[in-house]
């Protein structure tokens, strides 16, 4: 009876080993020290990486914006960045000045060889099939019309929605898309809208791509919303932009 069974004999050493493995609780000081040390090292690495790449990233962003502008305004040679203030009026974006007042609309003024205004470029956003479609459009003050568009970012279905950058018939909509304002310059005279393929009747309508109506509509809405916000503020001050 006093003799322990064989199973009990086996159990005893196991429980002893388990007690051995359980480490004592770490002191609070050690935890704080380690976390503090790790945070300090990581902070240094992040700040180093940010500062080390800052110039290259800024240059890349500028080049990407310029490329998008040059694509929609082929005559452009140099560009300047402006923003239209919420209360009306425009201001130039200074170098390294990334903070734009809330409600302001950013746009680019493009100049040709002779330093004359070659057009205005602005970005617009519309809800597409998969995600927001961000486009850049070129605007000519002379004809008050869109003269070209390019896509900044989109995730539309390859082969269907992404035809908006390749379909020649669709792009033909944007050689002279009417963006005239009302006589009092308060808003667009006509809403820019994509209409069903083959039913375009007016110069402010966009003939949608058959099978990619949602993406086409997104482009129309992007241009409409952006122009609606930008042009009434911009046109009264157009003289300021005439020469670089």
């Amino acid at each position, binding site marked *: 009876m006093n003799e322990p069974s064989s199973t009990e004999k086996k159990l005893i050493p196991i429980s002893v080993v388990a007690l051995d493995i359980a480490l004592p609780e770490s002191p609070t000081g050690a935890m704080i020290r380690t976390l503090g040390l790790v945070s300090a090292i990581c902070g240094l690495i992040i700040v180093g990486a940010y500062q080390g790449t800052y110039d290259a990233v800024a240059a890349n962003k500028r080049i990407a914006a310029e490329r998008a502008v040059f694509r929609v305004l082929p005559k452009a040679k140099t560009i300047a960045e402006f923003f239209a203030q919420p209360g009306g009026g425009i201001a130039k974006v200074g170098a390294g000045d990334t903070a734009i007042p809330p409600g302001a609309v950013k746009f680019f003024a493009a100049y040709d060889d002779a330093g004359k205004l070659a057009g205005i470029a602005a970005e617009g956003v519309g809800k597409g099939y998969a995600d927001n479609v961000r486009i850049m459009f070129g605007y000519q003050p002379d004809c008050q019309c869109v003269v070209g568009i390019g896509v900044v970012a989109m995730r539309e*279905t*390859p082969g269907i929605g992404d035809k908006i950058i390749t379909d020649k018939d669709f792009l033909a909509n944007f050689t002279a898309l009417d963006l005239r304002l009302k006589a009092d310059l308060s808003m667009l005279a006509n809403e820019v809208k994509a209409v069903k393929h083959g039913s375009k009747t007016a110069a402010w309508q966009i003939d949608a791509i058959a099978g990619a109506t949602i993406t086409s509509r997104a482009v129309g809405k992007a241009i409409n919303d952006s122009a609606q916000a930008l042009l009434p503020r911009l046109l009264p001050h157009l003289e300021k932009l005439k020469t670089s």
Partner: protein
Amino acid sequence: MSTADTPQTWDEFMEGVWRQNPVFVMVLGMCPTLAVTVSAINAISMGLATLFVLVCSCGLVSLMRRFTPKEVRIAVYIVIIATFVTAVDYAIQAISLALYEALGAFIQLIVVNCIILGRAEAHAAKNAPMPAMINAAGMGVGFTIGLLALGVVREILGAGTLFGVALFGAGFQPWVIMVLPPGGFFVLGAWLLLFSWWARRRPLKEAAQNV
């Protein structure tokens, strides 16, 4: 390092590349694997970014292993991993914005890639920095190979190009579904099938020879 160590080091490295390949054997990190492999260049960039984060974070985790109380180890690992991911994020923006846009949120999501936390917890926390980094490098290379295997197939079938160079004539009709999300599953399934068939065939062959 002495020459006697070399085979073991090599073994350590090949562990991740082949026997424990993160994509084909462990089937870890499927989120970026399926999402960014629409082209070979995206795949290889994602693979290299992950490789860098793996090696650096495993190195630092291993250096810190003696001072890391087990109660706060996960916090320490995540902070270290997130740091290197942030560094990679800036580096990719500096190299190419187009690539940055193409990889999208998946660069930031390297933070929660289970391969990296898995390596930190299972290997780097218990080994000296050198073997930990070699093991991590093997895993990273294995992951890159896995992504590249998917990216190459999907780009050739879905776009008719390889690294952006057109492979076929103008008459080629791309198999568009291959660059859409379902294509990722098809190609991954096909590779897994091929890989496990091949891995199973070898022992069978050896057994047949022994008989």
